[in-house]
């Protein structure tokens, strides 16, 4: 009997979290409405700057968006260079090292603007919402997303533990990889 109010409070808390996590918005805003106010073009971007409006939080806390990001990651062949996060031709995405910053708007910029040495620009090709979905998913690769919203295992061959089970690795900025590192 005394547990009732407690349960109620718990439910309300869960509800608030649940709504953000479970929303399924499919009406993507059309392409062209570009994300963060200014897209930085320099090669070196300091990470750690607080997100401007926090609009990307919507994506990172939302299971559906992150799952969409996961689908697009494979549909748009990100796997081709970055593998399932382990890296290959491109840098790995599941560790704590970020050359161009590991904050959402950094990753957003990398996708939209492209980066030297192979990362093409997808400006005009990937609608804004899908870029944010990809950003959220990419961050979940290094465990940056809430565990109850991050994608679980694939229904295909599992190349790595699911994003849900990836331990969080807070992003550290690192300089451009040295030549020797790149060769590895």
């Amino acid at each position, binding site marked *: 009997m005394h547990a009732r109010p407690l349960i109620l409070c718990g439910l309300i808390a869960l509800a608030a979290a649940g709504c953000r996590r479970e929303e399924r918005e*499919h*009406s*993507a805003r*059309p392409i062209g409405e570009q994300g963060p106010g200014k897209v930085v073009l320099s090669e070196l971007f300091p990470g750690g700057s607080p997100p401007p409006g926090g609009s990307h939080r919507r994506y990172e806390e939302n299971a559906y968006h992150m799952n969409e990001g996961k689908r697009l990651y494979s549909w748009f062949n990100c796997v081709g260079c970055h593998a399932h996060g382990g890296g290959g031709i491109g840098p790995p995405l599941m560790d704590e090292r970020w050359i161009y910053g590991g904050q959402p708007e950094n990753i957003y910029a990398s996708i939209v603007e492209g980066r030297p040495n192979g990362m093409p620009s997808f400006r005009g*090709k*990937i*609608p804004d919402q899908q870029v944010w979905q990809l950003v959220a998913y990419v961050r979940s690769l290094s465990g940056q997303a809430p565990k109850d919203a991050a994608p679980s295992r694939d*229904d295909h061959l599992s190349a790595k533990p699911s994003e849900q089970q990836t331990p969080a690795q807070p992003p550290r900025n690192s300089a451009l990889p040295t030549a020797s590192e790149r060769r590895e």
Partner: protein
Amino acid sequence: MTAPVGPFAQSALHVAGPQAAHIERLWWLMFGVSAAVYALVMAALLIAILRRRRAAVEPEPRPDPAREQGLGRVVWAATGLTALTLLLLIAILRRRRAAVEPEPRPDPAREQGLGRVVWAATGLTALTLFLLIAASYLTDKGLDALAHDEEVSIEVTGQQWWWKVRYHGAPESRGFDTANEIHIPVGATVKLTLKSTDVIHSLWVPALHGKQDLIPGQDNVLYLRADRPGIYRGQCAEFCGFQHAKMALKVVAESREDFARWREAQLAPAPQPADAVQARGMAVFLSGPCVMCHRIAGTDAGGVTGPDLTHVASRRTLAAGEIPNNRGHLAAWIADPQGIKPGNHMPASNLDPADVRALVAYLESLR
């Protein structure tokens, strides 16, 4: 909004091929048997209810059998499903009688008589069921009788929420991809290999055959034949998510000549733009979001996750049977796919209206 289709283009009772015809025959057999059984049961129930109506006026523990028989005949003659229900209604509304003493141990002789009737009915039920099992088994055999020497071999892959259709050729370079529309020659056996890359779907073209599931990790096969030319609608029959309702396809059964002509046309690469507008459309296609998912043979567009658009203009519908394929609907679909089919995987684009016009002109040229 919806693509026009004829009435009963997706009906299991308006069949166009031997497989579906076998099943339709079984249906009518079962319907006939069931209707007869139902009429008998209802008649029995009705008599059970009606036969003692006089008892209320003058109690009669053992009614005269001859009269009972006569009453039975009358009621049997009056049998007919709706009529029976109506009679039931009247009979019940007219009955009013005081509660009577219960009879905890009914007369054994009467019980024996009832027992004989019940056993006879049970035996009859078993016999009927046996016949139906046999009929079902024979029909199943009949479905298998369609020789497995297919003239056309088609691979259908279910995807959320459209159908990828691949025609195998010999050599394989004579194969091609299309979507949401299957052309088959009339009178030819067609083999459909059914696959899925995401969730379970089910292919159902009632006019030609029953349904078969498309299951990830498992290939199912369906043989069918169309005996009449026509356009038959089919639809996904296994719940597959958001847009399960709008995952339709057309089967176009045409003469062998028409089919051969269609096949040759599909094999060709996409035609080059014929004018400046189309050329601009092609440029928009190649530089915009379209290329991320769609392929047009003969161009740089090589996306494989969406439908192949090499000959998109030759298809009758867009968005898996949802809208007719014409200029207006095509433009609407490009501008706002989420409005037409919420939740589907095609994102809205924010192209300049002139670009959309050019893009539509280009896509319309891909016959």
